[in-house]
C-alpha cells in the first residue's frame, strides 16, 4: 500500500501535476541562484538552513537513511522530474521493499534500483543538465516555456509640469504587450532611473546584460527648468534635449521588453501598467548600499579568474576593441551633426545675402534669377537641417546606446568575476576548516572535531553552491553575449541602412531643388 501510494505520488509529481512547490514553467524567478541576488550577509543566515537541508538529503541518500521530503528543495528537483520523465522513461524500475525505506521521497526513481556511486553520478548529471537547460532557458526561453510576447512601447508626447526650480517633464508611455489592451501611464525621468536600479539589483548578479538607462543630465535639466528665454539658442537647446531623451527612453523600454527574462519582470510590468511608479529599494540607498558598492569595488580589483575557457578573455578583449571603435565613430558622428547644422546655417546666410544682392540688380531677369537662387539655398538649408536630425537620431544615438550597453556588458563580466572569487574564498575557507579539523583530531579534542566536521560539511556545501552559481552565471553570460552580438549586428545594420536611405532622400531633394532652379537660370537675358 505504501508502495502504491508512493508510486502514485511519484507519478503525480512526474507528470507535472501542481504540487505545492512545483514549478511548471522553466523561466521563472525562483531559482537556485536567487539567493545570490540578495544581501550577501543574508546568504549565510537565511539560506543556511535550506542548504544544509539539501546537503543532508544528498548525504542521507548516500548513506541510506530516510528523510522527510524536503519541501525547501523543490527547485533543484522539480526540473529534474521533468527531465527524468523524458530521458529516463524506461528506467522507472520496480521498487523493492528494502530500497524504498532508504530512498527519500523526493529522489527520483533513479536512486532505487541503481547502486550508490551511479546514483550520485546520475543525480549530478541530471541536476547539471537541468540547470544547463534552466540557465539557457532563463535567458532565451525554449519551446516548453511560454513564448515571449510581442510588445511595443511608445512615448508619443510629454508635458512640462510646474514652474522654475521644481518643474519637470512627464512622459506619456503607451505599452502594447501581447494581446493585452494598450495601457497608458505617466512617468517622469526619475521613475525610469528607479526602475533601472531595481532591475539591475535583480538581474545583474545573474550575469544578465541589463540595458542601460539614459543617463542623468544635470545641465540639460537645469536649462530645461530655467530656460525658455528670449534668444533662439536657449529655446532650441531644451527642446532638442527633451527630444533626444524621449527617444532614448523609448528605446530603453523597448530593449527591456526585448529581453527574454526581463520582459516578464513584475516591476517592469507594474511600471508599464500601473498608475503609481515602482518605489526604490530602501536597501539600495543609504549605508547598506554604499557598503555593498564598496565591496563590489574591492572584489573587482582583486579578482582574477584562472580561465579554463579562453572564450571569456577573448570576448572581453573583443568588446574593449569594439568600444574604442564605437567611441571614435561617435566622435565622427557628432562632428557630422555639427557640421551639417553649420552648413544649414551658412546656406541660410548665403540665401539672405543673395536676396539682398538680387534686390540691388538692375536687370529684371537677373534679379529674378538671383532671388530664385536665394529661395533654392533656403530650401537646401532646410534639407540640411533635416539631414542633421537624421544623422543624429538614426545613426549617432544607436552608436551612443551601444557604448552604454558595452558598459553594462562589462558589469556582467565583473559579476562573473565576483562569483568566482566568492567560490575561491569559500574553497580556501574550506581548506582552513579541514586543517583545523586535522589539527584537532591530532590533538584528540573530540568535541572540537565534531564541531569541525559540522563546519566542514557546511563549507563543502557552500563551495558546491558557489561553484554552481559560478557555472550558472558563466553560462548565462555566454548566452547573453551571444544574444548581444546578434542584436548588435542586426541593430547596426538596420541603423546604417536607414542612414543611407535618409541620405539618399536628402540628396534627391537637393536634386529637385536644383532642377527647379535650372530653367530660371537659363532665362537670364
Amino acid at each position, binding site marked *: 500500500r505504501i508502495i502504491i501510494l508512493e508510486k502514485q505520488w511519484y507519478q503525480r509529481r512526474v507528470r507535472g501535476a501542481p504540487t505545492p512547490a512545483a514549478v511548471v514553467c522553466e523561466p521563472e524567478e525562483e531559482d537556485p541562484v536567487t539567493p545570490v541576488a540578495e544581501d550577501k550577509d543574508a546568504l549565510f543566515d537565511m539560506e543556511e538552513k535550506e542548504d544544509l537541508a539539501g546537503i543532508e538529503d544528498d548525504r542521507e541518500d548516500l548513506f541510506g537513511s530516510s528523510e522527510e521530503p524536503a519541501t525547501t528543495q523543490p527547485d533543484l528537483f522539480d526540473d529534474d522530474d521533468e527531465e527524468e520523465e523524458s530521458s529516463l522513461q524506461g528506467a522507472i524500475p520496480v521498487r523493492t521493499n528494502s530500497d524504498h525505506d532508504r530512498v527519500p521521497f523526493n529522489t527520483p526513481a533513479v536512486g532505487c534500483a541503481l547502486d550508490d556511486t551511479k546514483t550520485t553520478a546520475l543525480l549530478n548529471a541530471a541536476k547539471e543538465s537541468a540547470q544547463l537547460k534552466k540557465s539557457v532557458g532563463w535567458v532565451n526561453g525554449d519551446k516548453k516555456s511560454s513564448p515571449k510576447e510581442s510588445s511595443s512601447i511608445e512615448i508619443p508626447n510629454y508635458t512640462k509640469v510646474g514652474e522654475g526650480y521644481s518643474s519637470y517633464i512627464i512622459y506619456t508611455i503607451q505599452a502594447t504587450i501581447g494581446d493585452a489592451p494598450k495601457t497608458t501611464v505617466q512617468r517622469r525621468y526619475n521613475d525610469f532611473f528607479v526602475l533601472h536600479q531595481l532591475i539591475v539589483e535583480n538581474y545583474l548578479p545573474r550575469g544578465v546584460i541589463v540595458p542601460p538607462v539614459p543617463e542623468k543630465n544635470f545641465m540639460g535639466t537645469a536649462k530645461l527648468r530655467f530656460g525658455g528665454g528670449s534668444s533662439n539658442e536657449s529655446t532650441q537647446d531644451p527642446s532638442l534635449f527633451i527630444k533626444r531623451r524621449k527617444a532614448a527612453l523609448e528605446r530603453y523600454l523597448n530593449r527591456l521588453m526585448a529581453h527574454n527574462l526581463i520582459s516578464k519582470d513584475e516591476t517592469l510590468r507594474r511600471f508599464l501598467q500601473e498608475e503609481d511608479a515602482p518605489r526604490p529599494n530602501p536597501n539600495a540607498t543609504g549605508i547598506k548600499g554604499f557598503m555593498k558598492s564598496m565591496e563590489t569595488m574591492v572584489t573587482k580589483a582583486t579578482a582574477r579568474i584562472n580561465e579554463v575557457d579562453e572564450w571569456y578573455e577573448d570576448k572581453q578583449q573583443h568588446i574593449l576593441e569594439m568600444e574604442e571603435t564605437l567611441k571614435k*565613430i561617435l566622435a565622427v558622428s557628432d562632428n557630422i551633426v555639427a557640421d551639417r547644422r*553649420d*552648413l544649414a546655417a551658412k546656406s541660410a546666410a*548665403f540665401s539672405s545675402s543673395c536676396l539682398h*544682392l538680387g534686390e540691388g540688380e538692375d536687370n529684371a531677369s537677373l534679379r529674378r534669377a538671383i532671388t530664385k537662387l536665394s529661395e533654392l539655398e533656403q530650401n537646401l538649408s532646410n534639407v540640411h537641417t533635416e539631414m542633421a536630425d537624421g544623422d543624429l537620431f538614426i545613426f549617432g544615438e544607436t552608436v551612443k546606446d551601444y557604448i552604454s550597453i558595452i558598459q553594462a556588458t562589462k558589469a556582467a563580466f565583473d559579476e562573473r568575476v565576483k562569483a568566482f572569487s566568492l567560490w575561491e574564498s569559500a574553497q580556501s575557507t574550506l581548506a582552513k576548516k579541514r586543517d583545523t579539523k586535522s589539527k584537532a583530531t591530532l590533538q584528540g579534542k573530540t568535541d572540537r572535531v565534531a564541531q569541525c566536521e559540522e563546519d566542514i560539511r557546511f563549507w563543502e556545501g557552500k563551495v558546491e553552491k558557489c561553484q554552481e552559481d559560478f557555472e550558472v552565471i558563466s553560462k548565462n553570460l555566454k548566452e547573453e553575449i551571444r544574444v548581444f552580438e546578434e542584436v548588435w549586428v542586426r541593430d547596426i545594420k538596420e541603423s546604417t541602412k536607414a542612414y543611407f536611405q535618409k541620405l539618399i532622400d536628402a540628396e534627391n531633394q537637393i536634386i529637385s531643388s536644383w532642377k527647379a532652379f535650372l530653367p530660371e537660370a537659363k532665362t537670364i537675358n
Partner: protein
Amino acid sequence: MMTAEEENTREHASTVSLNDENDGRLSVSITDAVSELETVKFTIQTKSALPSFSQHQMSVIRCHEEFIWLHDMLSENIEYAGYIIPPAPPKPDFEAARDKLTRITAAESTMSEDEYKKLRKELESDYLALFKKTVAMHEMYLMRIAAHSKLREDSNFRVFLEYAKDLKVRSKNKKELIGGFFKNMTKNVDEALLSSQKDKDEFFIERRTFLDDYHTRIRETTRQTEQLSESTNALSVDYMQLAGGFALLSVQDPQLQRFMAQCAISFEVMQKLQKRVSTDEDLKFTDLFKYYQREADAAKSLLYRRGRALADKDIAENKLEKAQEKFKDIPTAEAYLQDCKIRFESISEMAKTELDTFKVRRLETYRKHLVDMSELQIRHSQSKVGELSKGLELLCDL
C-alpha cells in the same frame, strides 16, 4: 612639382565666359601651367588673324608679375581712361597649401602609413584645385582684353603675347609700392570729394548709385559664399573619417566584415563627391562674385576718372572766367578748357558704351555660371544618390 594637365585647363577654358565682342580674330588661351618654387609659369597660346600681329600663332611663357605689368600699363594709359580696365587676376596663393605640406611632412613619423597617404592625396587634390583656379582667372583676364575691340590693339598687350623672351619685368620696388599706395589714398579722398559733384547726366548719376550699392552687396555675398564653400568642405572631411570608422569595424567584427567594408567604400565615394560640390561652389559662386566685385571696382574707377575729368573741366571753366575778368592768359585758359572739354566728352562717351557692355557681360557671365552650377550640382547629387543606392542594395544582401 605640379603640372596641371592640359585637359583640365581646356575644361576651364570652356567654362569661362567668352565676350560676344570677340569675333574670333584673336583667341587667347592658357594651355599649360607649371608651378616652380615661388612662381607659377603660364604657357599662353595665341591665334590671331589681326594684321598687327607678326605671326598667326604664337606661344609664350609668362609669370604672374608680367600680368600685373600689363595691367599697370593699361591702367596708366590715359587714352584708356574711358574704358573699364579689366581687373588684374589675383596672385596665385599656395601659401595655405604649402603650410599644410610642411605640417604633414613634419608629422609623417607620428602617423600610420595609410593616414599619411590619405593626407597627401588630399593635399594633392587641394593643390590641383588651387591651380585650376589661378589658371582660370589669368585666362579670363587675357580673354577679356582680347575681346575688347580697342584694348586688344594695345601695343603692350601685343608685346605681352608675342615677345618670345622674358619681359624682364621686375615687381615694384619699395619706392614704387609706396608711391602706388599714396596714389590710391589720394584717389579715395578725391572720390569722396567728388561724390557730392553735380552731374547733369542722368545716366551717370543712376549708374554711380547703382555701382556703389552693388559693390557693397556683392562684397557681402562673396563673404557668405566663401563660408558656405568651407562648410561644405568640412562635411567631406567628416565623410572620410566616417569611412575610416566603418573600415575599423569591418576589421574587428567578423560578422560585419563585408557589410562595413561596403559602407566604407560608399563613404569614400561620398567624400569625393562632397568635395567636388565644395570646389564647384568655390569656382562658380565665390569666384563669380569676387570677379564681379573687382569689375564693379573697375567700373567705379571709370566713373571716378570721368568725375575727375568733369571736375577738371569745371575748374578750367572757372579759370577761363577769371582770366577773362583779368584779361590775362585768355588763350591758354581757353585752350586748356577746350582740352578738358574734349577729354571729358570722350571719356563720357566711352564710359557709356563700356557700362552698357559691362551690364551685358555681367548677365552673360552670371547666366553661364549659374547654369553650369546647377548642372554640376544636379550631376553630383545624382552621383551621390547612385552610389548610395548601389551601396544600399549591396548592404541589403549582406
